[in-house]
């Protein structure tokens, strides 16, 4: 049994370490590491941070980046009331239809709508962004290795390029982006938003907040998953103990 567990452990370790390293691309810099409240076995999303992060997304990121997989109604996860959600949704315009006359019409957003796309198509997005395509952020925190730390590091990782670095025209130096040059100019600056809860809107604070919001956007069921998991594992531990006792009992008459 001991050997079995050791081998299982080794097999697991090896497969994971090889996986982890398989993700690493190029000469990546070691990322900044934050102890996120939603990490760990009992982790839950920091509601206040996520709400502030939504504000950062809407006032800063949403100009270029979509969030096309997230419906307004799901904001209730973050503690928004039905009225607040209706108000947030109504701030966006949607083309709907056709109506009875066969005409398309504009209407304000509803809670069942997804966050609106900032550009009608990829070509329009590229044309407005010097040829670069700002990706949708719905899954960003899961679509990059160590995604939460990556997003935070990236948002706070702008700086002057080293003297010997050959920065292309229209690009910005970022220590954490693959290849270190990124088309996106530094999106956050001191007091880019004004937080209603009085939290000082430093670049670091906004980067953390929007990262929490995007982590929720990518994995909205994280809290349910962890709480179900805890109960399942506790149940299985008891079940295993019962089976072990029964096994001992059944086998005790053998010599």
């Amino acid at each position, binding site marked *: 049994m001991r050997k079995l567990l050791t081998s299982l452990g080794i*097999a697991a370790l090896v497969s994971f370490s090889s*996986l982890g390293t398989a993700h690493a691309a190029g000469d990546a810099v070691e990322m900044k590491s934050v102890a996120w409240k939603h990490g760990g076995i009992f982790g839950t999303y920091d509601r206040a941070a996520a709400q502030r992060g939504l504000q950062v997304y809407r006032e800063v990121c949403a100009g270029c980046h979509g969030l096309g997989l997230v419906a307004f109604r799901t904001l209730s996860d973050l503690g928004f009331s039905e009225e607040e959600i209706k108000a947030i949704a109504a701030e966006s315009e949607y083309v709907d239809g056709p109506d009875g006359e066969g005409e398309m019409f504009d209407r304000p957003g509803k809670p069942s709508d997804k966050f609106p796309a900032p550009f009608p198509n990829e070509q329009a997005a590229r044309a407005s962004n010097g040829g670069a395509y700002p990706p949708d952020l719905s899954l960003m925190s899961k679509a990059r290795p160590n995604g939460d730390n990556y997003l935070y590091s990236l948002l706070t990782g702008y700086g002057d390029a080293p003297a010997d670095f050959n920065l292309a025209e229209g690009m910005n130096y970022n220590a954490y982006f*693959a290849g270190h040059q990124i088309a996106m100019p530094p999106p956050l600056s001191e007091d880019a938003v004004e937080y209603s809860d009085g939290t000082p809107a430093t670049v670091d604070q906004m980067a953390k907040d929007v990262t929490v919001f995007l982590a929720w956007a990518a994995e909205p069921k994280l809290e349910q998953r962890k709480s179900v998991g805890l109960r399942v594992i506790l149940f299985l531990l008891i079940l295993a103990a019962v089976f072990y006792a029964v096994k001992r009992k059944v086998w005790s008459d053998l010599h």
Partner: protein
Amino acid sequence: MSFEPKNPVVKWVEDRLPITGMLHHALYEYPTPKNLSYWWTFGSLAGVMLVVQIVTGIVLAMHYTPHVDMAFTSVEHIMRDVNYGWLLRYMHANGASMFFIVVYLHIFRGMYYGSYKAPRELLWWLGLVIFLLMMATAFMGYVLPWGQMSFWGATVITNLFGAIPVVGDSIVTWLWGGFAVDNPTLNRFFSLHYLLPFVIVGIVILHIWALHTNGSNNPTGVELKDKQDSIPFHPYYTVKDLYGLAIFLIFFSAFLFYAPNYMGHPDNYIPANPLVTPAHIVPEWYFLPFYAILRAVPDKLGGVLLMFGAIAVLFALPWLDKSRIRSARFRPIYKQLFWVFVLDCILLTYIGGKPAEGAYIIWGRIATVYYFVHILILLPLVGLFEKPKPLPASISEDVLSKKPASEEAANA
């Protein structure tokens, strides 16, 4: 202990379709060696995982849309909108990894205890057929979410068939249903991904049939001699397997609930884009040893042949292994070689996940050569020259010889 139904309904059915008797025979009368260790649990665990995959897969298919424009969002719809859809999908995705973990341990157990030797060659073969079908099923399943790794993995692997001389290109076009991996490819992969698990079920039935024909091997490798050596499968092994299952499910749950994306690849959360190639195209971890062998050869056709050869040679194992002794417990040299072979397979897995550059290429080649040297050269030679330890006269004798003296005194 033949089956005499007492219940009149059961008797009525039994006289017309002796199915209860068959189950009774398989569970109560089927003699199982009494010394099976927990390594023998992985067979039934593999069966459980197959059922888990089929059940979760059928429900996922009710919500999934196999179309290049909708597949990715339909998976996200499952993750976000379907009740417990996240659980189903994570169970299915991690379940595939769990299935392979269990099956790899099951295969290594067979190799350690010489379970493939006569009269169990066909049992071994059927197991390898299941393994091949699993790989095909898993590969096609990984394509369905239509993320970047799905698309590029499918492109790389299907392109391998292009290495076949003369007809290679035609075969690839035929597999794709077009001139690139596209909607027809996704549709047929979905269809086959749904079909193959049921083919696996069929082969599993043959696998169990072959198993029950000669019975389980056991840690001594000595065949059952008399009644003293065996116990009925139920309740002894049903309860032992249930305990093993509970422990295994805890391991499964740890990933499922706390690291559900650990064994996946972040790039697969990016929708497939035929115009952007990921920096490193890496298959799922369970394919990495074979991927390493593929890349160890500088020639495409050579690499493909060697990769398929790595599994093909396993079919010849019963004849390549010249030793008449089954269990490595009594084969001092083979025992060492077995563990070196395991390390070699782990090294191949590691190399398979690394970019093909520098020292990784050299190590990949060394590990590949050793894989074949072990199976094709060392295994036959060791069988001829190794001096085995004395075998116990029977399973009973072996079990009793291991009992501590105090316990024996208490039993006396």
